[in-house]
């Protein structure tokens, strides 16, 4: 197991380096620091103001000269004193710099946004998982019937509506029917939080349910066709027992890996939902950053999101190896 774990970790190193490189390239090469400065300060900003901005955000060396992109070839300089190696160092130490818009350290903003995001995503995820599993088991139980057929169509239909439409209609309907739940705002003071998070949680739940049910149904259907199911039926186990004991156990392996991979992302929040309901989470932070061209925050978000993905991948592999010994030996 330890051997396997070390192999997985080593496998991740080049991918992490690749992610760092892409993030760096997007925000330093495709968009040079000078271009970003002009985007923030406006096209008519003076050269002096631009230089000042570059200086404040660490894009120049000690003598006030602009850093080269990859290697510092100037005589007498450290060849690694360049934008690329500085970025790598900052990524490695989680120093995400300051927001371009508010000048606040990005990590502080992210730490502040994590909890509100979790308030929305965690309940929606847990309840959604439970509902999706029950619904998909039901569909598998009545497989190849009219209910199964139209249930699947319903799932596809719910996947065909963009999240923005869910949110717009949801907010409109909810504000008319349940005026007790505020359509905008957030606080973290005990029970009143529930009032604020109820609507976004329900909308997130509904918008994600169709895709989950369809996926779990496909997983379970594959299991149902396996031979051990026929064996169980042949020895006289009841239909419900075959489904809920024999099949669920095996099907859950795939489900758990999916769930574990999704867990780290809960902290990232939801892009569209949060800004609609005024929840000061990470999704809202990102939406604001997009509107204000705050590349500092976007860069941090992209990088941290990738780290979370890799973390989820690792956790998935560990879970998979733990429940299925065959994997470890490959």
């Amino acid at each position, binding site marked *: 197991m330890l051997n396997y774990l070390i192999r997985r970790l080593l496998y991740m190193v*080049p*991918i*992490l380096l*690749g*992610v760092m490189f*892409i*993030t760096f390239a*997007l*925000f330093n090469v*495709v*968009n040079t620091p000078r271009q970003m400065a002009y985007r923030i300060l406006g096209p008519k900003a003076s050269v002096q103001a631009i230089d000042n901005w570059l200086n404040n955000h660490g894009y120049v060396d000690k003598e006030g000269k602009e850093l080269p992109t990859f290697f510092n070839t100037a005589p007498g300089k450290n060849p690694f004193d360049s934008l690329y190696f500085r970025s790598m160092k900052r990524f490695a130490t989680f120093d995400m710099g300051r927001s371009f818009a508010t000048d606040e350290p990005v990590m502080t903003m992210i730490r502040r946004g994590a909890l509100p995001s979790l308030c929305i995503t965690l309940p929606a995820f847990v309840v959604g998982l439970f509902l999706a599993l029950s619904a998909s088991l039901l569909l598998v139980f009545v497989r*190849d019937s009219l209910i199964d057929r139209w249930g699947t*169509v319903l799932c*596809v*239909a719910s*996947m*065909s*509506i*963009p*999240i*923005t*439409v869910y949110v*717009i209609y949801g907010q*409109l309907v909810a504000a008319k029917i349940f005026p007790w739940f505020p359509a905008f705002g957030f606080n973290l003071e005990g029970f009143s939080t529930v009032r604020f998070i109820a609507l976004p949680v329900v909308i997130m739940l509904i918008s994600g349910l169709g895709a989950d049910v369809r996926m779990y149904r496909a997983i379970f*259907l594959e299991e149902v066709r396996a031979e051990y199911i026929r064996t169980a039926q042949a020895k006289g186990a009841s239909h419900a027992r075959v489904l809920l004991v024999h099949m669920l156990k095996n099907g859950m392996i795939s489900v758990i890996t999916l769930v574990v991979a999704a867990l780290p*992302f809960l902290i*990232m929040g939801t*892009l*569209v939902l949060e800004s609609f309901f005024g929840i000061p989470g990470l999704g809202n932070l*990102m*939406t604001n950053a*997009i*509107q204000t*061209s705050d*590349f500092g925050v*976007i*860069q941090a*978000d*992209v990088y941290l*999101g*990738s780290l*979370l*993905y*890799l973390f989820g*991948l690792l956790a998935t592999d560990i879970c998979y190896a733990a429940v299925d010994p065959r994997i470890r030996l490959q």
Partner: protein
Amino acid sequence: MPIWLSNLLILTGCAAFAALLRAFLFTERSRRALNRLRRDRVGVVCAVLIALFLLAGLADCLQLHPRQSLLDYAFRNVPREAGYSAPLARVTFNERDPKPLQGRHLFGTDLLGKDVLLQTLKGCKTALIIGGLTSLIYIPVGALLGILGGYYRRWVDDIVQYLYSTLASIPGILLLVAVMMTLGKGLDRMAIALSITAWIGLCRLVRGETFRQAAKPYVEAARALGQSHTRILLFHILPNVMHLVIINAILGFSGLVLAETILSYLGVGAPVGTPSWGIMIDSARMELSREPAVWWPLSAASGALFVLVLSLNLLGDSLRRAFDPKAG
């Protein structure tokens, strides 16, 4: 570019696309699948609906005059109003001082007095451009890399795997936003940004299937007959993974249309003024907060979007069943 040239290019493109599709459908396997699809009522209805959307989009691409497309020509008798008006209303949507309208509008008119039905149909063109342009970029890339990785294995496969696992590590929507932020607004840029994330799924799928196909006896037989790798890839393996590419392209198209609405909402999507469903849905936030609410542009845009995406998804599922009846 002169109008006749752009029209000609568009028509040639469509003809080339149709010829390609026909060439693929000529194989024994696809014909059997199509026969099965013909008996699937849902699939047929979806295919017809998608064809209608494509026709509407195409009609808006073909131009008669510099500022008039075929679609505009069909709507030439629909007058432009002064502002909002409800569906089939006779007066403008203004409580204090309603003015009589010059014509009737099935889906009403928007803020600038344009017919919402026409705007919705024009949205087909935008969806078509985004979906089509992106597919043109990502399908060749994804399919090629997938086939190469699955067939040659070893270091080729290592490179392909490294490329897609690195890109897949960055959450799709964040990467999309980041690329759009650095490239700037525009439909062509959106196609590039969407391609960067879209090819990963296709590549994985094709790679896996090529892996399976390459182990089959027919490949070995072709090899024993002395055929070159290129020939085996093009004439033996590609036809056998092509159905996956087509199914993935259809399902992917729906994802691209949905992604456009999210990007437009975030303000990094289509430029303002493009008749796109994403922008219509986004502007509905303001319209719904008016009293009384202006609900028809949102309903028309989201309705059209829903029908297109649902048809694409259901057709993709039907095709998958038709090609692989055992999978169910």
